């Protein structure tokens, strides 16, 4: 919600930025626009560089074998980068996403069921049919079996 409000304010900021154009008068309009784009990019890189650079100045630097290891959620990085995990979980996560999306669309539709009427009902049946096709696919191809 907060993000949307910021976006809505942009035109207001534009108006107030107007007088500043005078300061850039000798540069052509076109160049001025792209200078802003360049500044924008430079700012993005500059911020990251500043954060990492400042940190490297102030922090003590005493590397040990443990410290330079890759950090992943506190789990010891043992073995090679190729580790296997159960494909079953992946498939169930994927199916969960399907029903999650379904719910996201069904709730608002249900809230306005009477106003949307038959038109809304037909639309929703089409939507659910396409999702159900996905489930039927998973079922028929045997991925729902917990092998």
């Amino acid at each position, binding site marked *: 919600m907060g993000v949307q409000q910021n976006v809505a304010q942009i035109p207001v900021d534009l108006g107030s930025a107007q007088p500043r154009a005078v300061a850039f008068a000798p540069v052509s309009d076109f160049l001025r626009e792209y200078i802003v784009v360049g500044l924008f990019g430079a700012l993005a890189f500059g911020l990251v560089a500043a954060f990492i650079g400042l940190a490297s100045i102030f922090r003590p630097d005493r590397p040990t074998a443990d410290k330079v290891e890759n950090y992943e959620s506190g789990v010891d990085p043992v073995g090679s980068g190729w580790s296997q995990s159960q494909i079953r979980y992946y498939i169930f996560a994927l199916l969960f996403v399907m029903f999650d999306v379904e719910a996201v669309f069904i709730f608002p539709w249900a809230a306005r069921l009477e106003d949307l009427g038959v038109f809304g009902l037909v639309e929703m049946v089409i939507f659910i049919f*396409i999702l159900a096709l996905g489930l039927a696919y998973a079922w028929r191809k045997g991925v729902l079996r917990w092998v």
Partner: protein
Amino acid sequence: MSGTFVTLVAAEIERPSIDWHAIAPELILLGGGALVTVIDLIWLERVRKLIPTLTSLVFLVALIPVITLWADGSGLPRGLWIIDENVPATGVWEGAFVVDNYSLVLKGLFLLSAYVIVLLSTNYMSEGDYYDSEYYQLIAASVLGMLVMSSSRDLISIFVALELVSIPAYLMAAWRKRDLKSNEAGLKYMLMGVFASAILLYGMSLLYGIAGSTLLSDIAAAIDIGESRPVITLGIVFTIIGFGFKVSAVPFHTWAPDTYEGAPTPLTAFLAVASKAAGFVALINVVIVALPTQANVVEPFIWVLAAITMTVGNLIALRQTNLVRMLAYSGVAQAGYMLAPLAVYDGISDRATSAVVTYLVIYAAMNLGAFAVVIIAARKTRSAELSSYGGMFNYAPGLTLAMTIFLFSLAGIPPVGGWWAKFEVFRVLTEGNRTSGIALAVIAAVNSVIAAFYYLNIAKQMWFLPSPDGDNSRIAIPPALLAAVGLTVAATIVSGVLPGVVSDMTDFVNVAAGQ
């Protein structure tokens, strides 16, 4: 949150009366794709051989309403949501989805390309022990996104269409799943594609923030303030960069060669032709409909992109020894030529659009043909290395002739198709005697000469050099691949000898905006 939502939708819903004829191609493709899935689910292995045929039939059936719309539409744009039924074809529509001559040509192009891609895929997929019915369903989904893209005149529908084009393509790029290169292809393509989508969304959000509407025509009206402003420029630059990834413009092309090399070759043809065309369509829709007044911002940016894209693409292509990688870089360079008309669209946006679409149509024919020959040759040589094409004239003279036609066309040598595509681009560039246009035309001309070297080098291998292993037994060409080569050869020659056939179709009034 829910309170806000209810007030948003509290206004009485106006049920749109839907112009079923206008959306028939999309509906047929959606229904047909679902039908193919259901048939696959019911009979599984028993219908496996039928799935490619069924899918290509769906594409051809979807082509019927495109043709009838073309025949009766007399060039007038139609909308999906016709609010006032008394003014059907000319007037009022809500503008997110517009069917006009421009979108019909592109829909025809996408459906025919998809048909040829299925012809190219049939043997490759059935002989390679892949999941083949899913592959065809994904192609249908991706093509559905392309059809929607041709009609989209709204940021949201453009974005949804672009994702519908891309996501199945990410999956298909990694289709040879036991091959590390194919894994790399899919992963790289997905990561770069997602990255591009994020940049694109950022640019779109800035444009939306300024206009307060996602409709391209509303955006055009909102930013027509007689001057440019930094935030508008930022929005435009990010949006164009997002599309730049999709059309593999330098410096956003880095995914293309690896993805093209690793992906199944028919899918590479699909990416190089149809998927790239979809990116161009999105770019044209946004630039021509939403940014007609921002030429001072858009033109220099696209000018630089076009110049770098054709130069870098051609120079790197010179050094390639793998034909698929060479075609990938040649595709990058060709994208530069296609971008060029958009670098001078101010005041002649209709002509610039025609030039790009003409190029897309002819490029589809010649490039699909070239990939068809690569696929056929790989059935014998098991390799796409340039040296393995030596001596092909001895064992496959017809195929060599076909490939030579495609290469001449790609190089832009009359009388085959490619020259007309390039001619249209040059004509737009030099129209109006603008320095920027003429400079870009000179760069494009120099690049055409560079490109001729590596295209003709392939022809030299095939005609004059001996085959590397001395094996001159003939190639057996399966009927599907033969049909694909025949169709593309015919299209390439006809578009060059009778350019009117293509230019009559692509001579639009303009890209119709929604209102």
